[in-house]
């Protein structure tokens, strides 16, 4: 709003201060009128829930003793809660391994599609994207069946070949198994982000490179990758947020592998269990807020890093 009314250059004399103030007020009110509908919805569906969660996190409601204000006690408890930290560490590990693998595969697929040397390009594009259209719950159930060592695909392979594959639902392998599901689900989505960024690169750049005698590999490293760095940062940030919010897959697999996936397997699952099994709504809100802040910080760090490279 501050830039709204510079004095017109043709006026010659400075307008009187009173007049200027009046005009500025009118301008700012009409502005509010325009953003009013948005702000109202934004306040109701974004700000109010956040404010309410923060409000809740300052209380504690006990089965015996009722509700009471506890200040920051929930926060100190959460920061010292080994279950919370173990859940956080688990998603950090997940993030560190699964996200690079997924983004790298997605990038390779996008480059392959973009190379123009692939036969049946649109068929591959749609079939690689298809898993993203499968709801996460359905995907988890489907993979859960395949992982079964008795009647599932793993079991079938074992009995057909007479071998003994390690159980994908065992505590040691469950995180990798979930990573496999998530990778399968989201390669297509990330591939599409990369592919659309690749397809807007001006053809003249390629022509120029050809004239210079650049190899295909050189095309990738010198033109394509730098051009889609922005898209890579976006995909990275979505993946970071997605990893920290890991919930559907472990929640669905929990019924198949109850001893491998604890109630505090991921931070979101922990918040869910706190609320729905333990009725610790206040503590659950606290965990959610802390996770929100951590996610924001890490996503921001990824963005900063991505931007620094660009400049």
């Amino acid at each position, binding site marked *: 709003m501050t830039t709204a009314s510079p004095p017109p250059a043709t006026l010659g004399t400075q307008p009187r201060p009173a007049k200027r103030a009046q005009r500025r007020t009118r301008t700012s009110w009409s502005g509010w009128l325009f953003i009013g509908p948005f702000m109202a919805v934004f306040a109701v*569906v*974004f700000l109010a*829930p*956040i404010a*309410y*969660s923060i409000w*809740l996190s300052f209380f504690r*409601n*006990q*089965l*015996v*003793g*009722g*509700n009471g204000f506890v200040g920051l006690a929930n926060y100190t408890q959460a920061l010292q809660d080994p279950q919370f930290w173990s859940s956080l560490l688990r998603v950090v590990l997940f993030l560190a391994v699964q996200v690079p693998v997924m983004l790298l595969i997605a990038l390779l697929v996008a480059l392959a599609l973009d190379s123009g040397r692939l036969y049946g390009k649109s068929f591959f594009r749609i079939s690689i994207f298809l898993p993203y259209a499968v709801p996460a719950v359905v995907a988890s159930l489907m993979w859960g069946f395949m992982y*079964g060592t*008795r*009647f*599932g695909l793993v079991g079938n392979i074992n009995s057909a070949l007479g071998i003994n594959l390690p159980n994908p639902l065992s*505590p040691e392998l469950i995180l990798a198994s979930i990573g496999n599901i998530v990778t399968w689900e989201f390669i297509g989505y990330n591939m599409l982000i990369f592919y659309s960024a690749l397809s807007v690169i001006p053809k003249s750049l390629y022509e120029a490179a050809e004239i210079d005698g650049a190899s295909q590999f050189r095309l990738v490293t010198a033109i394509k990758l730098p051009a889609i760095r*922005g898209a890579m*940062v*976006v995909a990275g*940030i*979505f993946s970071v*947020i997605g990893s*920290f*919010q890991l919930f559907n897959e472990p929640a669905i697999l929990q*019924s*198949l*592998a*109850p*001893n491998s996936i*604890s*109630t505090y397997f991921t931070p*979101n699952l922990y*918040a*869910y*269990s706190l*609320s*729905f*099994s*333990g*009725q*610790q*709504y*206040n503590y*659950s*809100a606290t965990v*959610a*807020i802390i*996770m*929100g*802040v951590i*996610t*924001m910080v890490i*996503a*921001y760090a990824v*963005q900063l890093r991505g*931007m620094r490279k*660009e400049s």
Partner: protein
Amino acid sequence: MKSRISPAVLRGSALALAAALALTACGGGGGNDAGGAAPEEVSAEDVQAALEEGGDLTVWAWEPTLEKVVEDFEAEHPNVNIDLVNAGTGNDQYTALQNAIAAGSGVPDVAQIEYYALPQFALAESVKDLTGYGAGDLSDTFSPGPWSSVQAGEGIYGLPMDSGPMALFYNTEVFEKYGVEVPTTWDEYVEAARALHAADPNVYIANDTGDAGFATSLIWQAGGKPYTVDGTDVKVDFSDEGTTKYAETWQQLLDEDLLAPISSWSDEWYQGLGSGTIATLATGAWMPGNFTSGVPASAGKWRAAPLPQWEEGGTASAENGGSSLTIPAASEQGALAYAFLDYANVGDGVQTRIDGGAFPATSAALESEEFLNSEFEYFGGQKANEIFAESAQNVPEGWSYLPFQVYANSVFNDTAGQAYVSDTPLKDGLKAWQDASIKYGTEQGFTVSE
């Protein structure tokens, strides 16, 4: 780029918080209005008057046989209109119910609550004490196990709907094929488990991936009393003799991988029950209906037997599952709701539900010749109710669940369940479960000791 990313980040974290809100939105109210007041007095005349006046009732229950009961009740009392809602099974329904109670709106007039979860609702006074409705006169109507399960302190917080005296269901075909005797003690059970698994590595005596309800039932049968509850004074101790018996026996099954790692109610489970992979199932007497509907192809192969004993020649049993109908405290239709409870659980509804395959909780039904003599087609014409009724008589007294058993059961797999997938002994797992229960109880304001 920058201006596009920041909102994305903001949106992401806002979503996280919004999700948190969805979880927490219902937790605000929390308090309860009853506040330890004397129970409402509602006479039989009031109930009768409410019936004549009629009205709308909302009933939350997942028990399938109630559909017919509701139909009959409405036919008999045309002024009453009942909305029977399946708000989820077990824990899902409790969550919905607790949310409705906390929010103060959408609370049903009647809710099905399992015995193990009832103390939690009774303690919070989320359900009405039915003493003032004349429920105190019903002590001889119900068999002792279920009747004691609906009481907490001085109050009666629900009317028993069904019960789950345990029995051993077994696949005769599997036992005959491998020439193994059906076990009558848990020691024989372990022997049978070895024999069956040795004869065919695909065959297991049972499936088990760690089930809190099952474990506590076996401890109950063994005479253990890990939970002692006196108001808000709670004791959790998994080191008594009964618990030890259970832990030592089950440890052998775990050590030798004699239990199929298949979770109950999963597709694999139904397949296993049908294919003979799972040879026995020790569970409540409410199971036959599930066999008929879930494993229809195996009709005639399964039989029921008394639960294996911890001591040779013993007769002890235990309850597994079973639920009551309650009236949430927020319901304004107490008298009418009680009329329905009385009809469904004491009156004509009982027979309707037995005909539908449910296992009753009333003494009269359990002792009736018709009930005892009914032949189960699924079990090859066996009069299985004789075994179940006998089991109902032999449930050791003095068992109690925690006033926060719903939570405790939810962390069973975090703790005791580790014995199923690692080298952690079951005994240590149970100790960890004990610690987790104590921690939660203390946080919730109980006085908890070991």
